[in-house]
């Protein structure tokens, strides 16, 4: 009973933590560029400001799908925190992305359509690797349940290559350079999220924080029952992603797909084979 309360509190606080992560990220990124950078609580300032804007939208369907995107990603994160089935969690996350894509497609805006198209393609790039990751975890651990993965031995030592593959596709998932084609602020001005404003954009903005939680929770799983190792991995991944984001230029979506299918996927698959033949 007590654990359920703790988990519920964690799931409820997930957006808050995600906002903090985003704030720290902006600060770290600024320091890497030799800037001072915004306040760590900056995402929350943005949050409150957006809540105060006059409500503007393109049409109701579009606005509503944006809100549902936020709710569905929260559900995915909650199922992850409650220790559900890993594959189900991956597909619940796909569901939330699908709602974002459909929102993007539902307006007649070019940038929105381009962004939604590219988001759909980035699903193609990262989803197989995530599934292979889940199956490799099963091959090592004998369970798809996150609650039992988190209580097992650290996975990192048994599947380092899978972890590397995960690191390779994380920029696609978080829409970070060099694989930020789906968002591409300088090119398509944010992609699928462009038509949202005010409180509807707030939903998309907060969903992005939850995305951080989702991704870092996946990284944390590699620590298994060694929570210290998991936390170390999360911090390492955090620094790696920001360094990568600052130091690379955007590639186009074909290169992204090729990279994912010819580098990340084989790396993950080789690890799966190694675990099988051991």
């Amino acid at each position, binding site marked *: 009973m007590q654990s359920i309360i703790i988990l519920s509190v964690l799931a409820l606080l997930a957006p808050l933590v995600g906002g903090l992560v985003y704030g720290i990220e902006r600060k770290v990124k600024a320091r890497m560029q030799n800037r001072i950078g915004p306040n760590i609580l900056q995402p929350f300032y943005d949050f409150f400001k957006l809540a105060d804007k*006059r*409500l*503007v*939208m*393109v*049409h*109701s*369907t*579009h*606005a*509503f*799908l944006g809100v*549902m995107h936020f709710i*569905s990603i929260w*559900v995915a994160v909650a*199922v992850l925190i409650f220790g*559900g*089935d890993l*594959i*189900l969690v991956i*597909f*619940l996350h*796909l*569901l939330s992305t*699908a*709602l974002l894509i*459909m929102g993007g*497609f*539902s*307006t*007649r*805006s070019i*940038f*929105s*359509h381009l962004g*939604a198209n590219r988001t*759909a*393609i980035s*699903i*193609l790039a990262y*989803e*197989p690797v995530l*599934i*292979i990751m*889940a*199956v490799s975890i*099963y*091959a090592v651990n004998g369970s*798809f*349940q996150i609650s039992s993965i988190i209580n097992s031995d650290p996975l990192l030592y048994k599947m380092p290559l899978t972890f590397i593959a995960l690191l390779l596709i994380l920029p696609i998932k978080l829409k970070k350079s060099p694989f930020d084609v789906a968002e591409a602020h300088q090119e398509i*001005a944010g992609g699928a999220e*462009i*038509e949202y404003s005010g409180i509807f954009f707030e939903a998309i903005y907060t969903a992005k924080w939850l995305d951080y939680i989702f991704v870092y929770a996946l990284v944390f799983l590699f620590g298994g029952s060694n929570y210290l190792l998991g936390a170390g991995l999360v911090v390492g991944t955090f620094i790696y992603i920001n360094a990568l984001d600052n130091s690379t230029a955007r590639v186009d979506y074909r290169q992204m797909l090729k990279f994912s*299918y010819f580098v990340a*996927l084989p790396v993950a*698959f080789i690890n*799966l*084979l190694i675990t*099988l*033949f051991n």
Partner: protein
Amino acid sequence: MRSLQLLVLSLFALPPVAGLLLLILPKVLGRIVTILSVVALSAISVYLFASFDKPFQILIPEYSDKVVMIADVLLLVYFAFIAIKRKSVLVGLLTIGQAIALGYLIKLLGHHEGGIHAQFYIDRLSLFMFLLINIVSGIIATYSLQYIDEEDCSPYRKKFFMFTMLWFIGVMNLVVSADNLEYFFLFFELTTLASYIFISFRKDNESVNNALRALWMNQIGGIAILGAMIYSLSTIGYGTLSFQTLVKAAPTVGLLFPLALLAVAALIKGAQMPFSSWLLGAMVAPTPVSALLHSSTMVKIAPFIILRLAPAIKGTSLSLVIIALTGFVFLAAAISALAQDNFKRILAFSTVSLLGLMILMAAIGTDTAIVTCLILILFHGISKCMLFLNAGVLEKKFHLKSALDMDRLAESGPFTAFVVCIGFISLMLPPFGAFVGKWFSIEILGSTLRQTRGLTAIVMLAIACGGAVLSLLYFKVMGLLISRSGEKDKVTFETTHPLYNVNLILLLALILAGVVSLPFLLTGYFGPVASDVLGSAVAVDVQSNYSISIGTMNLPVIPMILAFLILPVSLFISLFIRFRKVDRVKEYTCGEKIDYKFNSFYFDTEFLLPYFKAVGLVFFALIIILTVI
């Protein structure tokens, strides 16, 4: 028991009788007869499933064997007639081959007295197929009453179309209950004949060519069944034509060749590469035909046969090759579909792909895999049926065939666009049944990795990639048809013919009801059917932590309920919801005020198709070679 047998017989007899009535009655009466008979068929199949307790056989008089024999010969004569009329060498040669095999079989049977008494065998799997066939095809039949009325052809041909459709439903009922392989062969060939008649219905050059292709490809399947019969009769240990005895005897005899031939017939019927082109060619026929072939009937013979064979081939090299082939087809068909623009062709490729997944699950043959296969068969049937019926509405009302022209459909036909979206989403996302199938199949493949080492790992990779490719494909179509400008916020629904609407809403309700009742379906429906398929009990239990366990798998209920509230419900709300206090502004296009024409991305994967077919052919050869050795 006696009354159940009679009910099953009525399932066989009612559709052709209704069809004959339809031929002589005037239009309105014919419609009433069709709808009544369809409702009766559905009611009978539901009642049968509800009151069934243990498998039974239907005994029919001895002389019916002779009738079947004569029907076989007549059918071959008709095929020969087609071959001469259409000047098709392939059909002719295959017909000659079939005739020779059939002659040899008759000679063998002459020596072989007795032992062939069980002609029809009804177990829960047959009843499961009855439910799917009668309810979904019934919906299609009601729908096509209106559809074929708008078709440009003579009144007699319209009636003939409906007649063919009805007797085809009867034949499908026969196929899934036949136990004697000779009977099975006849019904299998009758479905082939039906597909020929359906596909060539429009009588133009393309239709006839595609119909001939469907004919000769399925004739290969017929030859395979004949081969299986001859082999099994002339082999010591088998010596039987009964499906059940054959499957039960296989592990002790150890010769898988007849089973492999049956599997080949199934794979051809299931349009697995390289034999996918007959199903793709079927797109030239009127849309209800595609719906009928793709969703509940024709192609579902394939997973049905493999399910029947599953206990015998589980864990053998034969099942490994089938797994490899279907895993490959799942990915290959999904990739080929990306290059397509025609809405129906996109659906067709996705059918081929998902059929691969179903056959794969059946070939694995563990308890959870069988349950997954059944889930996929049922929910894929309903979803695909809805999508194809929608394709018909799109064609007749909106005059749309290509997915690229569907830009702004949400403005002119929001309900149609919504139903298409639900149809696509129900094939890939939680909480829908087909998604549960996909999810379970990944986990099942993951859990069989240890036993098969590398092989299923590659298949699993193919499934993971293929699933992602399929989602991309569905987004490609959905993206175009759900876009609408903000000029008008209120959605005004289009008016379509009530016969269209009622059937679509019925299918929509079936899909949503399927989601809501999935836990109950698993315990009370899929579980028992799977136990009958395997011949041993499949444990489907409700766990204390709000989840359902099927063998080693776990279906948590709470996330699925949440997903149900999010996805179908929110999509439905998004149609009606209006934020009144919110201002509407233009879409951001850098301040420009031009209206744009949108297009989806295009993948040039068409050139890969021949290679895919070649690989598929290699697998087919492997099936034969491995079992001969």
